[in-house]
């Protein structure tokens, strides 16, 4: 019965994290895809090998203002212009760490629901659950490392 209690908490958390993710995804999408100055993905198709996507003028000027006049607006530098501001960098890292944890919990809890539905054998369930949460933990460590050390 203890197991069913903890499942109720997870069930509740799944809905809470899901609701949070809607707001976090809006922020994430806005910054990464739509903002003219800081979006690292632009509205352009690149087919040539070695060719870099062309950024809007706002992004080129933003990179120059933050990182120097001779710095080009490459994808990496467009991200780095955001992290050049220490206050923004801390906010950005805090947001992304929270985003990472919430997304991983939501995704892997959901995946475990699906696995439990199709795997009937208790041993198989245990293996599937252990494996999937190990992958999640590995991704958490990789993700935390990437976010924390970005711009160092």
């Amino acid at each position, binding site marked *: 019965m203890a197991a069913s209690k903890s499942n109720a908490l997870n069930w509740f958390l799944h*809905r809470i994290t*899901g*609701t949070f*993710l*809607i707001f976090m*995804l809006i922020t994430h*999408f806005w910054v990464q*895809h*739509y903002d003219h100055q800081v979006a*690292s*993905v*632009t*509205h*352009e*198709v*690149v*087919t040539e090998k*070695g*060719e*870099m*996507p062309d950024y809007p003028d706002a992004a080129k000027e933003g990179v120059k203002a933050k990182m120097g006049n001779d710095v080009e607006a*490459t*994808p*990496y*530098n467009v*991200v780095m212009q955001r992290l050049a501001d220490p206050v923004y960098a801390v906010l950005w890292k805090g947001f992304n760490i929270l985003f*990472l944890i919430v*997304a*991983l919990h939501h*995704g*892997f809890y*959901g*995946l475990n629901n*699906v696995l439990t539905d199709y795997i009937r054998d208790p041993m198989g369930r245990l293996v599937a659950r252990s494996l999937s949460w190990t*992958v999640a933990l590995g*991704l958490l460590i*990789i*993700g935390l*490392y*990437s*976010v924390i*050390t*970005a711009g160092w």
Partner: protein
Amino acid sequence: MAVDTQDRPAATTAENGPTAEQDSRFQRYRIRTGMFAWIMHRLTGVGLVVYLIIHIWGLKSLSDPETFNALIAKYHSPIFKVGEFALLVAVAYHAMNGLRIVLIDFLGWSPKQKRLFVTLGAVTALIILVGGWPSIYSLGEWLFGPGTMPSLFL
């Protein structure tokens, strides 16, 4: 698998003898609106977990400018632009159907199910069209030549 949706049939049809429709061997799996929504939620959910794994793995390259630039350049290739749009469709559907589940579970909106379903469906379509425009625009510019697509709000 049949994916046409239909409302829950009147209770009496189940009690009557086999109808033409029930002769189908798939009749036990006849997909109703709610079940279709549930299957799609599950499929998009699994797809998004797979994407999440690739996404976090790819972001390791943030520690190396050269690799990161090459990766982002690759994300601008036509196939990734199509994938980007498919991702938005999956995210928009999963988010709005999830919101529907939360509203029904937490706020007891089940009497308003039908209206909720239609409203959130319209919101999802709007998110896909407006949010997906950058991807459609870039693919159109590449396929039909520069200046052929209306840039609209971009």
